[in-house]
C-alpha cells in the first residue's frame, strides 16, 4: 500500500488516480462510521461524499507528521454531528427510525446483533463514535483521541460508559445465558 505522504502529495497535484486511491482506501471505514452514527444508509452515503469533499478541500492543512486515518475519522464524526443536528430540525420529511442497513445473519445470532445495534443507536453520539471506532474499526485509543480531539483518558471514560450502557441493555433483554465465570 502506498505511503500516505506521497499519496497526499499526488492528490494535491490533482492526480486523478491518487484521488481515487485515497477514496477507496478510506471510504469503507468512513461509510461504516456514518451508518452507525446516522442509522440510515442513504444519509450515510451522502455524508460520506461530504466528508471526502471536506477532506480534499482541507488536505493541504493535514499535518503530515500524523496519520491520515484519525484525521479523516475526525472529519467524519464532525460531519455526522452536523447532519444529525440538521436532520433533527426536519424530522417530518423522512422516517429515520433506524432503517435496517444490513442483512440479517441466518443463524441464531441475528437477535443478538439486532440488540447490539439498537443499543448502539440509543447511545449519545460521542459514546457511539468511540464504541464503533474501537470495536468495529479497530482504532487504538490514541487514534480515537486524535480523531475526536480529546484526551485519551476522556476516550477511555466514554468507551467504558458506552459499554456499560450496551451491556445493561443486553442484560435487560435477557442476553445473559450461563457462560461460565472466567473471561477468556
Amino acid at each position: 500500500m502506498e505511503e500516505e505522504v506521497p499519496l497526499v502529495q499526488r492528490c494535491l497535484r490533482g492526480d486523478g488516480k491518487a484521488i481515487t486511491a485515497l477514496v477507496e482506501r478510506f471510504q469503507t471505514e468512513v461509510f461504516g462510521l456514518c451508518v452507525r452514527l446516522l442509522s440510515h444508509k442513504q444519509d450515510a452515503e451522502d455524508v460520506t461524499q461530504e466528508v471526502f469533499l471536506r477532506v480534499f478541500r482541507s488536505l493541504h492543512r493535514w499535518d503530515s507528521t500524523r496519520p491520515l486515518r484519525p484525521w479523516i475519522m475526525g472529519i467524519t464524526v464532525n460531519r455526522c454531528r452536523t447532519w444529525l443536528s440538521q436532520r433533527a430540525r426536519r424530522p417530518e420529511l423522512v422516517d429515520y427510525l433506524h432503517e435496517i442497513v444490513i442483512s440479517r445473519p441466518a443463524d441464531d445470532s441475528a437477535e443478538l446483533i439486532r440488540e447490539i445495534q439498537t443499543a448502539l443507536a440509543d447511545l449519545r453520539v460521542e459514546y457511539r463514535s468511540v464504541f464503533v471506532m474501537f470495536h468495529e474499526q479497530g482504532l487504538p485509543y490514541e487514534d480515537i483521541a486524535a480523531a475526536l480531539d480529546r484526551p485519551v483518558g476522556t476516550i477511555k471514560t466514554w468507551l467504558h460508559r458506552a459499554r456499560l450502557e450496551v451491556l445493561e441493555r443486553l442484560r435487560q433483554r435477557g442476553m445473559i445465558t450461563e457462560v461460565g465465570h472466567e473471561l477468556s
Partner: protein
Amino acid sequence: MNCRECEQVLQAYLDGVRLPARPELAEHLDQCSPCRELHQAGQHLVSGLQKMPLLEPSLLLTERIVSAVRTQRRQRLQHRQRWLSLAAAVAALVLLPLSAVLLPRAPDRGTSEMAQSKPVLADLPQPSAAPSLNEQVEEARAAMTRLTNRLSEQARVLWEAAGPVELPPVDLLPDVADLEPPLHPAAESLQKARAGVSAGWQTVANSAQRAVSYFVREIPDLPN
C-alpha cells in the same frame, strides 16, 4: 474482590486484554448476581461484535465521490481566478489615481511636444495666438489618455513580474486529466491568471478613457 474491581476486569477483557484466571473473580461472580449478569452480557457482546456483518457502501459510491471532488476542484480554481481578477481591478482603481497624484510627472512625448510648440505659437504673427479652450481640453484629453495607458502598462508589467508570487497553491492546479496533453498544468494556470488580470486591467483602462471622453463631450463648444 469488589464490584468496582470486577468491572475493571470486564473492561480489560473488552479491551482485548486476556488476564490469567483469578479465584477471587469467580468467588465474587458466584456471590454477586448483577456482576455475573454483566460479565455474561460482556461475553455475548464480544461474540456479537465478531459476527457483525461488514457494512459496504453501494458500488457506485467511489465514482460518485471522485466525480464530486473533481467538480469541486474546478469550481474552486475558477473561483480563485475570478477573485484574482477582481482584486487586480480594485487595486488598479486605487493605485491609478494615487499614481497620478503621487508620481512625479515625467517629461513625456506629449509634454515635450507642447513645450516645443509654445515658441512656435509665440512666433505667430497674431496677438491672439493663445490656445482656445477647446484646444486645451483636447490636449488634456490626449494627455489623460496617454497617462492612463502608460500607468496601465506599468501596472501590467509589475503584475507580470510579481506573478509567480501570486500563483495559486499547488493543490488548486487544474486536473491533469482534464487538460490538453501538451500543456503543463502550471503554465495553464499562469496563462489563465494572466488572461484574467489583463482583462481586468483592460476594463479599467477602457473605463478611464470613456470617462475622459464623456467629460470632454459634455463641455460645450466655445468660440475661439
